[in-house]
């Protein structure tokens, strides 16, 4: 029952063709989105966009300066909360892990990262907004931090685990205490990978909309207090997109272009770090 | 019983050496017997054949040497195996030299056969028999790794030595009594010495076997 080689080769060709087709099907809509964002965004973005706050309904012009600032502030605060927790938690898992409790923590982190972000928003709402009696940038930041923590933790842990055990042992064998070894050898060796994880987590929260809906809420104006509602780019894009006004659609496209550009830059930076690490 | 090697081929190679050595030992025994037979039975033609036979011994020596070298290079033997091979290397030399002694005996036999017999040979065949048994037993001890047997061989050497001295004394009296026998007596004397040397070689082999089995060198310690 020898199956002819020709038949096997035909099958090989056929399957190859199918996979090429799948790839094309995947790429086409993605390319379309990309093209639209660039086309619409480029025609809408201008200096005002970066310096002005949104004009009231009906007026043309305006920008998303307050949204960008708000996003930046909240991301910074979220990072300040989320990154240390993520990294030290990861060090615990990598250095002292192995026992049952760290498996549980690891699992919890994975589950946490899979929870829809809108739920994170709801929790932040009932934990902060309700007791503080008002929407606030702080609540928004905490919600974003909750999203960052598991991402930073898991990527950092993966990176730490990728550091060969013998490297730690090498350091320990030189008579270096465990804590110095953790920070100066293990973490240091994984630094670029950890940076990648951090950048990816920032990229992720920078585009988050849902958790801000009931926390930061959004703001048409500048706000400087952390205890008050604050504008954020994704929120603004959302609100403008579902509005019926052409001019706000324009702003939404411009915002999308800027957001995507920031995102891509972060991703590229992350990839760059990732690459240097591989070498 | 000896445990087998993990590698069947290694075992086979060691066996090959072992068997070649036994074969060589067998041939050497035949040479001893034939050279003595050519003397006792005044069979010059047998003496001739015995002399020619030596090249087979020589050939076996080279073959075994080469095989040992190959095993050393290819198997990196250690401990008992290493001792086995290095001793095989030394033993073949002894066996080959025994062959040389036999050639010497056969040559003298041929010469003696040209002349009238000196006297009936009684002690010489006994000595040859003893030496031959020693060779056989030394080799048996070697291939079997039997140190008891080897010790026995070492002890037997004394018997041959004594016979040799006795023969020498006898021949001396003979020569003194009748100078015309001197030339023949010297040849007989030579043969006796050869047999003694054969026993010596056998003893050397036996001593080395004890080393192989016990891992300690008794050469030069038991007289």
């Amino acid at each position: 029952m020898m199956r002819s080689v020709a038949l096997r080769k035909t099958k090989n060709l056929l399957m190859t063709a199918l996979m090429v087709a799948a790839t094309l099907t995947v790429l086409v809509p993605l390319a379309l989105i990309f093209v639209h964002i660039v086309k619409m965004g480029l025609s809408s973005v201008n200096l005002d966009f970066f310096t002005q706050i949104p004009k009231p309904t009906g007026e043309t012009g305006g920008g998303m300066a307050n949204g960008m600032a708000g996003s930046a502030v909240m991301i910074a605060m979220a990072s300040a909360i989320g990154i240390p927790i993520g990294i030290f938690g990861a060090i615990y898992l990598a250095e002292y892990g192995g026992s049952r409790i760290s498996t549980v923590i690891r699992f919890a982190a994975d589950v946490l990262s899979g929870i829809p972000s809108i739920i994170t928003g709801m929790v932040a709402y009932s934990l902060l907004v309700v007791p503080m009696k008002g929407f606030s940038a702080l609540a928004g930041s905490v919600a974003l931090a909750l999203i960052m923590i598991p991402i930073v933790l898991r990527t950092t842990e993966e990176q730490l685990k990728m550091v060969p055990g013998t490297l730690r042992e090498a350091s320990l064998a030189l008579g270096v205490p465990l804590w110095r070894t953790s920070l100066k050898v293990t973490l240091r060796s994984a630094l670029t990978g950890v940076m990648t994880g951090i950048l990816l987590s920032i990229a992720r929260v920078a585009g988050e909309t849902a958790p801000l809906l009931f926390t930061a809420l959004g703001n048409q104006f500048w706000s400087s207090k952390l205890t008050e509602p604050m504008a954020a780019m994704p929120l603004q894009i959302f609100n403008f997109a579902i509005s019926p006004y052409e001019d706000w659609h324009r702003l939404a496209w411009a915002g999308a272009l800027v957001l995507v550009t920031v995102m891509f830059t972060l991703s590229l930076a992350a990839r760059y770090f990732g690459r240097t690490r591989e070498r | 019983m000896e445990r087998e090697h993990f590698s069947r081929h290694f075992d086979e190679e060691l066996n090959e050496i072992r068997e070649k050595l036994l074969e060589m030992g067998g041939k050497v025994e035949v040479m001893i017997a034939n050279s003595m037979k050519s003397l006792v039975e005044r069979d010059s033609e047998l003496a001739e054949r015995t002399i020619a036979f030596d090249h087979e011994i020589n050939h076996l020596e080279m073959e075994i040497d080469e095989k040992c070298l190959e095993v050393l290079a290819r198997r990196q033997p250690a401990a008992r195996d290493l001792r086995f091979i290095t001793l095989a290397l030394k033993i073949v030399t002894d066996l080959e030299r025994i062959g040389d002694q036999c050639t010497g005996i056969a040559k003298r036999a041929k010469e003696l056969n040209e002349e009238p017999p000196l006297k009936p040979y009684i002690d010489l065949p006994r000595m040859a028999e003893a030496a031959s048994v020693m060779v056989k037993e030394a080799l048996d001890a070697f291939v079997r790794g039997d140190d008891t047997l080897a010790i026995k061989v070492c002890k037997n050497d004394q018997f041959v030595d004594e016979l040799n001295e006795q023969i020498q004394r006898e021949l001396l009296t003979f020569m003194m009594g009748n100078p015309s026998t001197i030339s023949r007596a010297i040849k007989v004397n030579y043969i006796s010495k050869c047999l003694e040397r054969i026993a010596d070689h056998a003893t050397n082999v036996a001593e080395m076997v004890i080393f192989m089995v016990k891992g300690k060198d008794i050469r030069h310690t038991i007289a």
Partner: protein
Amino acid sequence: MPPEATSQKWNIKTGLNGDFIFKGITVVFAFSILAILLIMVYEMAGESLPAMKKFGWRFITGQDWDAVQGTFGALPYLWGSVVSSVLALLLATPLSIGSAVFITEIAPKKFGGVIAALVELLAAIPSVIYGLWGVLVMAPWLQQTVQPFLIDHFGFLPFFQGAPYGVSMLAAVFILMIMVVPIITSITKEVLLAVPQSQKEAAIALGATRWEMIRMAVLPYGRSGILGAVILGLGRAVGETMAVTMVIGNTPQISLSLLSPAYTMPSVIANEFAEASSKLHSAALMEIGLILLAVTLVINALARLLLWSVTRKQSGGGL
């Protein structure tokens, strides 16, 4: 026992042992993760208690959602979430696996790398932007071309009946598909890249063609990892909020037709939670959140277990 856990001992000479302090800090941070998760569940459960008490199981089977009347039945949202996610996934899975295989095994290394990079970049685009594109570009296009076409040619099927609204279940399925494809593809790609070269060479050396190699060595090796990727995609689709909210039409109804608008669990929360009219209303929304949380917990747990088994195999069994 002398050797055990020396790092936890007090070092008399230097006062506090550095290792001890360090471990303490990491322990606190690590356990905070667990605390967060528990607090989330506790908080959600606590806040939804009024709704649970009032409606019991009827909350899940009920179809009425009337904030003014105070009756809350979540079935249309469940329906919308399940249908949109499952359909999106059915479309996305073969495409993702196909393109992941293409990227890792078929395309020339550099070309595959470029495609992979593109896919990864697209996975990073925020959902609100997909939503923006969906509502401003895709929905009108669907309304004008695709839906009329479907109605004309397949209108006899219950799935393609009704008027072309644009924003609809179909739009949600499409946008979700477009959004999860990059995720599934990039995880699958990672899984496939983790297939050791030695596995592929083993197949090739047995005289396999490239497809046979993929079928024999690559896909089975990545089997559970790929399944994990798909389930992760499912979790993502179920929880997806913004993009879906923007294109699904936000109408709580159960209809077989893909052309009619629908509603999902995250969408209703996004739309109503900020201005919930009553305690009960917000408790009902919380309960929807709790259901969502439970569903995603299960899905994620499943996906993680599968993905873990892959990594364990790689580190443990690979010799």
